[in-house]
């Protein structure tokens, strides 16, 4: 069983919802990333989403755009990010790590070279924002050959057929984008997310995580009532951005927002 499948199975037994924080690798500087990953796990993260910075993050709002720019000032490359995962794995063999980013860095490295290297480094899943299932065939084949889960994004306007297509090609979990928009926008409508998730579940066996717009403990707890995973990006990256002048304090301070969310989520009974 893959690390992702094992983690979701354990959480299901415990009746808990997964908490998945996102950070951009190398933000604000490469030395922060691995200590921050461990600190996020200690604060209650079940799975880590590690962003691969890209020069043109079209699906991201200003908070994560700025994080990409900070990381790219240090020329953080995909090779370096795989090294970070390898270092993280020396102390943590259990927590699944998903790489999230845009296709071009993977395209330029080459699908097979990337998949082999990612597997060896200890990566568990790969989410490419600008790669819908229609274009994903070759990458999916390469990833699956290395036991990596291709994770797809579903949107409010994805119909049943597309959800089934993502389920066929994908693995790990399905990432439901809670609204039409970019990351970090303030447009979360919990009731409509809940209704859509019911619909999605009738077309997929994969666990369904919800991301975009979950900004605090309260919204995390409300989503946790019905989702399999709560994904938090901009709310955490904002905390990191506030500490760019004191990067050594980031691993100790930034994960507090994750700990608060974890506590609030564990108060509610998951019906998923």
């Amino acid at each position: 069983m893959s690390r992702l499948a094992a983690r979701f199975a354990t959480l299901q037994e415990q009746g808990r919802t997964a908490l998945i924080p996102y950070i951009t690798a190398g933000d604000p500087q490469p030395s922060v990333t691995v200590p921050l990953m461990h600190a996020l796990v200690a604060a209650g993260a079940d799975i880590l989403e590690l962003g691969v910075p890209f020069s043109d993050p079209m699906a991201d709002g200003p908070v994560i755009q700025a994080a990409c720019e900070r990381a790219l000032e240090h020329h953080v490359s995909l090779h370096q990010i795989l090294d970070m995962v390898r270092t993280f794995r020396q102390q943590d063999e259990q927590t699944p790590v998903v790489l999230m980013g845009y296709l071009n860095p993977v395209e330029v490295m080459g699908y097979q070279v990337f998949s082999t290297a990612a597997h060896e480094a200890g990566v568990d899943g790969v989410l490419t924002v600008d790669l819908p299932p229609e274009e994903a065939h070759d990458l999916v084949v390469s990833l699956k050959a290395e036991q990596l889960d291709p994770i797809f994004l579903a949107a409010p306007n994805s119909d049943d057929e597309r959800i089934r297509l993502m389920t066929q090609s994908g693995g790990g979990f399905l990432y439901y984008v809670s609204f039409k928009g970019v990351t970090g926008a303030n447009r979360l409508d919990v009731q409509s997310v809940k209704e859509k998730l019911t619909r999605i579940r009738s077309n997929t066996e994969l666990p369904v995580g919800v991301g975009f717009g979950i900004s605090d403990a309260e919204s995390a707890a409300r989503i946790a009532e019905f989702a399999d995973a709560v994904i938090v990006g901009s709310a955490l990256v904002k905390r990191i951005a506030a500490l760019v002048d004191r990067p050594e304090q980031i691993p100790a301070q930034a994960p507090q927002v994750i700990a608060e969310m974890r506590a609030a989520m564990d108060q509610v009974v998951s019906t998923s």
Partner: protein
Amino acid sequence: MVTQAKRTEQPVSLSDLPDARGHFGPYGGCFVAETLMGPLEELRLAYEKHCVDPEFQAELDADLARFVGRPSPLYHAERWSRKLGGAQIYLKREDLNHTGAHKINNTVGQGLLAQRMGKKRVIAETGAGQHGVATATVAARLGMECVVYMGAKDIQRQAINVYRMRLLGAEVVSVESGSKTLKDALNEAMRDWVTNVDDTFYIIGTVAGPHPYPAMVRDFQTIIGREARAQILEQAGRLPDGLIACVGGGSNAMGLFYPFLDDKGVAMYGVEGGGEGIESGKHAAPLCAGSPGVLHGNRTYLMEDQDGQIIETHSVSAGLDYPGVGPEHAWLKDSGRARYVAATDQQALECFHELTRIEGILPALESSHALAYAKQLAPTLDKDKILLINLSGRGDKDIHTVAQLEGIKV
């Protein structure tokens, strides 16, 4: 890279492309966030329906004739041809279109389509401002809300076009992220579209972006090549030996080339922004010196580093200052049907002056790149050869740039 064999189903002719999913060989496609997949499918279906609807075509033709001022003339530049001492130069005068460039051919088409689809708001990205002006113009005429995204750097160097757009009622949004140029304006327009996708039509200005944009924009621009083909047959009694057009995203070049793709004797040359020279690294020539990758919804040649990050481009012409290029050009390059070269800022500026002084035509700096390659090629050919050049826009918008470079205060 994907394997080419799987994507290419041996087309009968190059002009049959793209395939059903928007692929030109391994290039093109639809690489966007999931939220845009539905709207792109809706757009594809609407376009396929309306482009064969005689009523839509009649309305488009009428607008092109009475609003844009088509057909644009084909002009034999006899004095410049004599000076170059070789092939005869014919200029397709897209500079004479309403708003001063070929861009309006496409915005009129997409504007009508937006109207048929019931959209009330249009958005666009712009570099030099020509596409922004052409979009704002159509939006004003159709009574639609219009928002144009423009890099902060481009806003500074194209102040007049910014004011023109505002006069036309458009909101011009300054994009402060990344390199603050055209590619960042495109990112921001995509972000707007993904947020407001229900009521908004995104009018992309070039033959790039996700399917169906590269094919749709090309189709709207092929009026250039269809007219030019008939005009040269009428004026010279035969097809030209070569076509030359500048290539940023590549819409004016694709519009000229496409109707000639099956004419084997017609050579095609796309001229990219060579900036300070290819060897300097400071240029905007992905086809000449870039490599394949995925950006802005399609796979194509890009200016990128070894990590797949997009790198900054350099060109005196804001309209060529783009790190990608339309996927059909990538395929025409690989297939050998078209050749891609670069002209430097300096070479383009020389031709800007030369055409103005010798023919009384002030060309856009973008189009001056096409002229610069004609200047190299014409003298190597006999006097009975014909080169047809797309004069894609007029240079009025560039007067301040040229004056500034020459230390003159206007």
